[in-house]
């Protein structure tokens, strides 16, 4: 009886190393300096969208929180945790009020992406891919969601030609270990088996930064990233 218990424990350890030694890398992304003020978006051309925003929304290139925290940063394991398989769940990207929600999404190569239109106007989704195949699909109001996949890792800028102010990003990664910071700048990359990792933080305007982290066991390593804000 006791032997079989050991057996199960050993089996579990082999099958689920992440659960047995669940290392986590977490931290905060901040900026130094004064970021450029975000501009209000003029949607007068599209009244059905404009009326959804009684106060005009602003561009989302730089999203910050209290204490100089930086949002919309994709923090991911760029080396050490390549995952061969894409998760089966679909990543969703919505067009609502002539705005992309969310502004940045991350997905695995080959992972199903679903783009939907919640507006009363037509949009065209145009990911300006350079490594992957570039496509540009029109989506009238009420039409079914567009299903797509990307084969290669790439940060893809997404635009709508009908509403030129609309801008978003697809971060196509070859790992499932990623985190996108909110206003508070926090990120957490859990379930990391022991090993050496390179953690990359990517921001659409401020570029990328990397740090090497070694996870030895069931521990939480704390790392922070700090970007220098551009004045313009």
């Amino acid at each position, binding site marked *: 009886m006791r032997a079989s218990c050991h057996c199960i424990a050993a089996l579990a350890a082999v099958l689920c190393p992440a659960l047995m030694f669940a290392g986590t890398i977490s931290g905060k992304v901040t900026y130094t300096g004064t970021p450029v003020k975000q501009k209000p978006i003029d949607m007068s051309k599209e009244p059905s969208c404009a009326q959804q925003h009684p106060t005009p929304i602003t561009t989302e290139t730089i999203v910050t929180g209290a204490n100089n925290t930086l949002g919309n940063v994709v923090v991911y394991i760029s080396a050490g945790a390549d995952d061969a398989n894409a998760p089966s769940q679909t990543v969703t990207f919505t067009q609502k009020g002539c705005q992309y929600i969310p502004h940045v999404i991350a997905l695995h190569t080959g992972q199903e992406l679903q783009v939907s239109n919640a507006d009363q106007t037509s949009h065209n989704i145009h990911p300006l891919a350079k490594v992957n195949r570039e496509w540009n699909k*029109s989506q009238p109001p009420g039409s079914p969601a567009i299903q797509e996949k990307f084969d290669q890792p790439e940060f893809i800028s997404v635009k709508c030609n009908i509403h030129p*102010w609309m801008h978003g990003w697809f971060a196509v990664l070859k790992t499932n270990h990623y985190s996108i910071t909110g206003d508070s700048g926090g990120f957490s990359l859990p379930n990391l088996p022991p090993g050496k990792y390179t953690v990359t933080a990517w921001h659409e305007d401020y570029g990328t930064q990397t740090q090497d982290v070694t996870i030895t066991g069931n521990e939480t390593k704390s790392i922070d990233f700090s970007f220098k804000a551009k004045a313009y």
Partner: protein
Amino acid sequence: MGGKIFAVLVIVIAIASAVPIITHTFLGASVTPPQDISTHGAEIDKQLDETMIEAGLSFLAAQLLLGVFVWQFGGRKAGPLKNFPGGSKYLVLAALLLVGAEAIALGAMGTKAWAKVYFQPASADALPIQAQAGQFAFYFRYAGPDGKFGAIHPEKIDEGNSNFFGLDPENDIPARDDITSGELVIPVNKEIHLMMHAKDVGHSFYVRELRIQQDFVPGLDLSLHFTATKVGRYEIVCTQLCGLGHYNMKAYLNVMSQDDFDKWLKAQSS
């Protein structure tokens, strides 16, 4: 018999066609007035009326004449017609001269209205505004408090970041206070100097109430000037098929009192 029926038909068509011409010329203004908010519009409207009357009368006359001939000769069996005096050569020449004279006369008279907009430069105190057309939106730029436009760097265009014109505020000081708007906001009774360029393909700037329709041509900097005389909000539409979003390529012309305009401009630059 068949010839007579045909002749009557031709005349009926002529009279039926005259109905919209007459309605437009004599009743048009009171039936569906596309209101005119420009200083030069009256002249264009007058020119259009003249063209309509002249072309309408010529059309009616030609159609009635055709009817008469069909009535007269429609039933004839084959046989030689009496020649036009001097032969067909002179007939063709006479027709060409007649039509040519009419076209030239209309053109010559129309030039006056056209030249007011295109041959006279904008006055020195006109408010300069830059208009950019791109797939599929218009954007307008004001020089800002320094009165100077920043230089345009197409490679810097970053629409997601609201840099529609490709300004470089980091290195170019005049660009820093430039104001970009999706709406063409102008003061009333003030001459506007619109400097137009296309970002990608051909587009057009059409404001019905302003009596202005001018194409954007890629690679050309085109200049237009006008004065709006009525406060209000009017539609600017693209009238050159420019791609899949063409149907949705529009903006608004917002004519304000000088006070409101100054306030608006101030709010934009803060």
